[in-house]
């Protein structure tokens, strides 16, 4: 069922309902670094980040570069019986595909290559867009889909998998950690740092509303609700 009618927003932007227990409550204005939690179920409702947006762009560009290194260079190499070979992430997925494990190959490609690329690209695009002017409508579309990219981007899980594989194979042959492994390790820390200064609520507060494209109004806060 498709619902094309926009709902009526409540007038008080501080009034929210907890996503885990639906308790109606008011979020106070927070100091940077402070956290608002639901008093009933302890769910984190808003973590106000320090305003460090001017520092995020170089970090994001570095993350993009590390990502490119991590997917294009060898992850692990092996040296045994006078032969040497190595594999990249994509090479690993290709090998699964050739072995008739197409489903697993697609999953590996999606969680290790596609989703991280989307995650970094979305963050980068939003970072560029929120500087200065009022963020446009498409920023909201990207922001809406960032949780999805975060759920399915599994580079830190892949890192653990690579380490386990490295130790496992080292019992059979000499294993050489590749450039991609170091790039991946650095990327995990960098992305964690970027995510920790990312404040979706702050962007939602400023972004152009979806319905304004249809009805041509910008601040449609009207209805009074007294809980």
């Amino acid at each position, binding site marked *: 069922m498709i619902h094309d009618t926009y709902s009526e927003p409540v007038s008080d932007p501080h009034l929210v309902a907890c996503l885990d227990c*639906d308790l109606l409550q008011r979020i106070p204005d927070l100091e940077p670094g402070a956290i608002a939690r639901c008093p009933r179920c302890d*769910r984190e409702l808003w973590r106000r980040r320090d305003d460090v947006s001017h520092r995020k762009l170089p970090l994001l560009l570095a993350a993009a570069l590390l990502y490119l290194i991590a997917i294009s260079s060898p992850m692990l190499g092996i040296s045994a019986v006078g032969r040497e070979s190595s594999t990249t992430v994509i090479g690993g997925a290709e090998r*699964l595909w050739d072995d008739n494990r197409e489903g697993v190959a697609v999953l590996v490609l999606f969680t290790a290559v596609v989703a991280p690329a989307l995650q970094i690209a979305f963050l980068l695009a939003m970072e560029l867009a929120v500087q200065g002017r009022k963020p446009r409508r498409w920023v909201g579309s990207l922001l809406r889909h960032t949780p999805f990219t975060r759920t399915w981007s599994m580079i830190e899980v892949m890192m653990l998998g690579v380490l386990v594989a490295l130790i496992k194979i080292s019992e059979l042959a000499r294993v050489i950690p590749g450039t991609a492994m170091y790039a991946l390790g650095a990327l995990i820390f960098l992305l964690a740092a970027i995510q920790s200064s990312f404040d979706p609520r702050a962007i939602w507060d400023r972004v152009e509303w979806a319905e304004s494209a249809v009805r041509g109004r910008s601040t449609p806060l009207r209805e009074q609700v007294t809980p």
Partner: protein
Amino acid sequence: MSGAAANAMQQGLQTCETCMLLSRPAPDAHAGRCPRCDSAVHFRKPASLQRTWALVLSAAICYVPANVLPVLVTTTSSGTETDTILQGVVLLWSPTGWPLALIVLIASVMIPSAKILAMTYLLFTVQLGSMRNNGQRVRLYRTVELIGRWSMVDVFVATFTAALVQLQPLMSMGPGPGLLFFAAVVVLTMLAVESFDPRLIWDPSSEQEAHDV
């Protein structure tokens, strides 16, 4: 505000799960669209229990072949050997290798089964209208949500092992038929967690409170 705290649904308000904007649907509608971020908004995730049950049961079914069928096939000059997930753990278990075996045991054996059991427990208690241990149950849900992704570890281990150990005719490794089912368990349980609505845990208590007032 009256004595008991109200939830949004009792006030006829819906919260957007994407941007947390609170809104009221059109007078005769049960759902609408978020005017800020364009997502569909509902009082509760639609058909949450049915969807979650379907996904959890599918995961439980895939769990059997995932553990019985081999995930890794080793071909050497002397023949072919296959390893299931548990055999892989046993093989890794040695005086020096036990930490590694423990990681694989937790990520590949304990997390997937714990996820299926935890989701089943949550579904049962919600359907029975339980009003007890709400806080603990929602914490269980958040834990499952947080650790679920780590069971993908074995898929990556198999991927890199199979791609690297290609020393024909001496020795080669390839992914076994169990790997697809194992990956399916991981994906299905993650989708089950996403389709479950934790607010259902609190609804019976909220109704009771409203009734008492």
